[in-house]
């Protein structure tokens, strides 16, 4: 708890001295008799006490029965306690807020922010890292929350580059034009989507029609497609994800995905749900294939970088980047790097298919 010798703190006398304690801590060169650092340390310890006291007082006490009887014995004392503790907390948080602002305003160099598709996240991150290593004065922040967010960020201007695994919808184009923005699109990679089963599953090749019937619920047993007599557990991506949209367009073709399909929120979650479950089938980006999964051929074609680039394997989509206008300055330099041989190498290393 806050305690100090009387008369040691400065400040106008209309407020209790405790009120000025944190202020004086910062304005005085040192607490009388103590160094500044030890002051800060003891202040932090006291803050912890304050937090504990804050938890055990107030209405929570009455509802949940926390705290001890002693807490309510002396109303005046309690009032003073709460007063001191909360005042300290507020002022300290203000001080911290002011301090935390300092480094960001002191940061130098150009900043580029990228946001959007979770599919493009690993490749965007890697590209940004390599680029920043080469040009340390450039600062690139990368976030991945979804293609919709990437496009939204371009429209509202909260990011310089929006990544997306789908093209803009009519509504979004209209919204952008309404705001006077002319989004510019570039293809940076192809994302090839591959149906997968667990290693125990004897099935190796499925036709598009069979995949469609598995996913719309017409085929419910592996026996019907050349496997064991086992129920099929269809694992799908969320119906709002870009990966799902490709599956919908290329495989389901207007049919609805069966209601008992497990909708997973990410490629990684699909891989996890399918690996080791001999009942399951799923689909994911070619970059997420691993040794615990068996990739199925589609219509006899094995999915690979080569077959995707030559368009023999046709379950793929384009990964796009959007900018608010024709890219200029550092954004253009970065996008040029992405399209350079070095950038393409990174795209390949991240498991996507680089465009020629």
């Amino acid at each position, binding site marked *: 708890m806050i305690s100090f010798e009387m008369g040691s703190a400065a400040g106008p006398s209309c407020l209790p001295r405790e009120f000025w304690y944190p202020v004086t801590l910062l304005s005085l060169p040192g607490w009388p008799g103590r160094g500044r650092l030890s002051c800060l340390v003891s202040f932090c310890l006291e803050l912890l006490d304050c937090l504990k006291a804050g938890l055990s007082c107030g209405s929570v006490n009455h509802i949940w029965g926390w705290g001890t009887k002693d807490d309510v014995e002396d109303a005046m004392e309690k009032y003073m306690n709460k007063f001191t503790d909360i005042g300290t907390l507020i002022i300290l948080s203000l001080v911290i807020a002011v301090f935390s602002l300092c480094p960001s305003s002191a940061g130098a160099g150009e900043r580029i922010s990228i946001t959007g598709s979770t599919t493009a996240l690993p490749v965007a991150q890697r590209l940004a890292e390599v680029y920043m290593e080469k040009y340390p004065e450039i600062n690139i922040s990368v976030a991945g929350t979804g293609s919709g967010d990437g496009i*939204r960020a371009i429209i509202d201007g909260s990011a310089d580059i929006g990544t997306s695994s789908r093209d803009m919808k009519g509504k979004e184009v209209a919204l952008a034009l309404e705001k006077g923005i002319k989004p510019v699109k570039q293809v940076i990679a192809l994302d090839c989507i591959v149906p997968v089963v667990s290693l125990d599953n004897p099935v190796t090749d499925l036709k598009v029609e069979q995949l469609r019937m598995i996913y719309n619920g017409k085929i419910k047993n592996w026996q019907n497609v050349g496997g064991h007599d086992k129920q099929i557990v269809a694992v799908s991506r969320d119906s709002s994800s*870009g990966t799902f949209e490709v599956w919908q367009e290329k495989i389901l073709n207007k049919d*609805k995905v069966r*209601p008992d399909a497990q909708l997973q929120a990410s490629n990684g979650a699909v891989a996890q749900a399918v690996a080791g479950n001999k009942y399951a089938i799923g689909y994911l980006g070619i970059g997420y294939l691993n040794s615990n999964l068996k990739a199925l051929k589609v219509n006899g074609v094995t999915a690979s970088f080569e077959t995707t680039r030559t368009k023999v394997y046709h379950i793929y989509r384009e990964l796009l980047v959007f900018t608010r206008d024709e890219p200029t300055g550092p954004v253009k330099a970065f996008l040029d790097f992405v399209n350079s041989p070095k950038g393409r190498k990174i795209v390949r290393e991240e498991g996507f298919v680089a465009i020629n």
Partner: protein
Amino acid sequence: MSTLSAGDNQASESTTGGVELKVQEGIPKYVFLAAASTSLLVMALIMIFLFREGLAIFGKVNAVSFFFGKAWYPTYDPPEFGILALIVGSISVTLFSSLVAIPLGVGTALYLSVLAGPTVREYVKAAVELLASLPSVVLGFLGMVVIAPAMQEILDIPTGLNIVSASIVLAIMAIPTITSISEDALYAVPRDNLEASYALGATRWETMSRILVPGALSGIGTAVILGMSRAMGETMVVLMVAGGAAQIPSSLFDSVRPMPASIAAEMGEAPFGGEHYHALFAIGIVLFLMTLVFNLVVTYISARFQQKGASTL
């Protein structure tokens, strides 16, 4: 510490008189009134936002087909916004997880407050508190990578991502809440009553079952409801472990898609301001109302069954 500052204040009160005291009392009053109003204001703004964004869906979809429609196909053309399967999903995992968590949580609390010796108590209590501090994503990961595959393998069921595995993980999360609040409630039962019971020759079991538990019932009830409310609102675990199939389950081993999972999974991709976006906010309203009901029940229980006597809860 506090005695010093209180004494200090009283001294200044007697020497400097009324005016300064008024200023001393007045300024903090308004400062903290402002602080207290912040949370109220934020709450009000969130509610306005939630309802404004959510209610917009009812202009396009009628309420009956929204609440009782079984098909959740928000991105199709034409879209279908029936959230019955999501509501049933949420309720099923909440109920089943309470079935697991209540006996374990209340049992732990009883053990800690009545039977455990001081050393055991200290360790078990620390463990329970540690459990409470585990991030939900870690527990979700555990459920997804360990519990679900093991369950699928051992029981040879089609999928381990189902109501049971999600409920087990949710129960693990609810146990610390239930245990610590129940334990506090058990401690709030007046020692006088227990001692009177022992003095009359009652055994430990009789005292526990007839004096201690009835005396702490309102607190235990509160604990259970808060635990359920935690399970209902938990997002990460159900997103990772419940399977995510928007269907009305026919068995405990079916996958479900509870409401928070649907919001979390779809909000990032829902076109801003579209029907899907509004529908997700409307699901948020349903979730909000459900947890509100839980909170009202808690308030009712603690007011209605408030224990009279030496100590009140």
